[in-house]
């Protein structure tokens, strides 16, 4: 199936500076609100699979998985600090009206 934008959540359901998880077409995806800009990524740390919406602590665009301290850049998914070594998968997003749409 070709990638397409899917309406996932209302933007006002994602607290500022917070991370919320949703199921989109069977995939558990975390969405972060960084000062009104939204980022979407797999809701699973690449180190030992902790939920990033549950354990993630956001400071600017840096997400710390508080389980074991791995840090990711939510814009790119890149690892900023170990123990994770593998980037977390990120998804393109767009805002349509009051909804956040995620491409997958």
């Amino acid at each position, binding site marked *: 199936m070709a990638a397409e934008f899917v309406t996932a959540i209302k933007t006002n359901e994602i607290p500022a500076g917070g991370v919320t998880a949703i199921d989109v077409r069977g995939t558990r995806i975390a969405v972060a609100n960084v000062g009104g800009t939204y980022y979407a990524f797999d809701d699973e740390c690449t180190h*030992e699979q*902790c939920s990033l919406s549950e*354990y993630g*602590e956001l400071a600017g665009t840096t997400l*710390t998985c*508080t*389980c*074991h*301290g791995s840090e990711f850049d939510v814009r790119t998914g890149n690892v900023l600090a*170990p*123990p994770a070594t593998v980037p977390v998968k990120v998804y393109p997003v767009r805002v349509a009206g009051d909804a956040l749409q995620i491409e997958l």
Partner: protein
Amino acid sequence: MAPRYVIVGASLAGATAAITLRDEGADGTVTLIGAEHEPPYERPPLSKAYLRGDVPFDKALLRPAAFYAEHGIETIFGTRATRIDPSTRIVELEDHRRVPFDALLIATGGRNRHISIPGGDLEGIYGLRTVQDADRIREEMVPGRRVVVVGMGFIGSEVAASLRQKGLDVVAIDPSKTPLFRVLGEAVGQTIADLHRAHGVRTVFEDTVAAFEGTRRVTHVVTKAGLRLECDFVVVGIGIEPAVELLEGSGIHVDNGVVVDEYCQTSVSGVYAAGDVANHYHPIFDRRIRVEHWQNAIKQGAAAARNMLGNYVPYDEVHWFWSDQYDANLQYAGFHMKWEQLVVRGGLDSGSYLACYVNGGRIDAAVGLNRAKDVRRVMPLIKSRHAVDLEQLRDEGVDLRSLHASP
């Protein structure tokens, strides 16, 4: 001539230093020397996921084996360094090779303490530090077999958990009143004892092992109090000693490890130490601390490399570690020896709490059981050294981040 950077100990600290030297543009040669044959690897999985067979060894490698050559790091693995001569700036290896250096990092880590009691050299008694140690224990891990775990510090506790998770019959012995007693104290330690008992570990506290019995291989563990426990094998985790023998005669100051200042430098200019072996001056706690955990190995290894490059960056990280046991996530941050007050968020008997070790109204350290976010949020409070409102600290309705700004 370009400087020669030499690192003794292809450990997490040593390898991180080598990588950091290259990342930060070191102009010169970087040589990483290690006694183990494997490329540098992380040890946390050895008592947990790797021991249980959940992840392959490759996952524990710090970098792929080819990384070092590709990044201009010369490696000498499987060869122990035996002597350091600061006056001639030479490291001697066990094969009599002599490696000259301009700046040297000692990251030799530690070695397991041995138990010297009757029967201590019987077969079937294991320590755990290297991947070979883990492999030997794995070969014994057949569901239903009986194991005695001697020592319930972090390694003993994690091994006991992994063995129970694999269906072995576990008895754990420790001379203290609880697991992790020396670090966490009785109240918190009791919750860890409960965790292990709830998972079926038989615990024996305030008793020590007097002898191992067996003809060729251990069959019984005898305690001072007179217990005689039948077993198929034994795992001993009673702590480590810093590996400092190569410093003998070097003149480098050794006292509970290699003594270094906040720049990771030893008593000899141009010679540094990091990781488990380094007894370092910590500017926040204003005392020397030697730490045997993953985060310190990485962060201090990197800090030492930056100082080897002449950057003079004090190492003032708030120490932090995790210990996963069963499905519980235990984390500790800070440093404490004794405490006036133990301030608890949540209930110690609830399976989820943050317990803060407080002196003079300041949080010196905190331990969290299934409280990952709270541990992360308390770390700036520890680092600030400010007194905090203990009622707010205890109050679950107060976000710990709101206490960060308080004077």
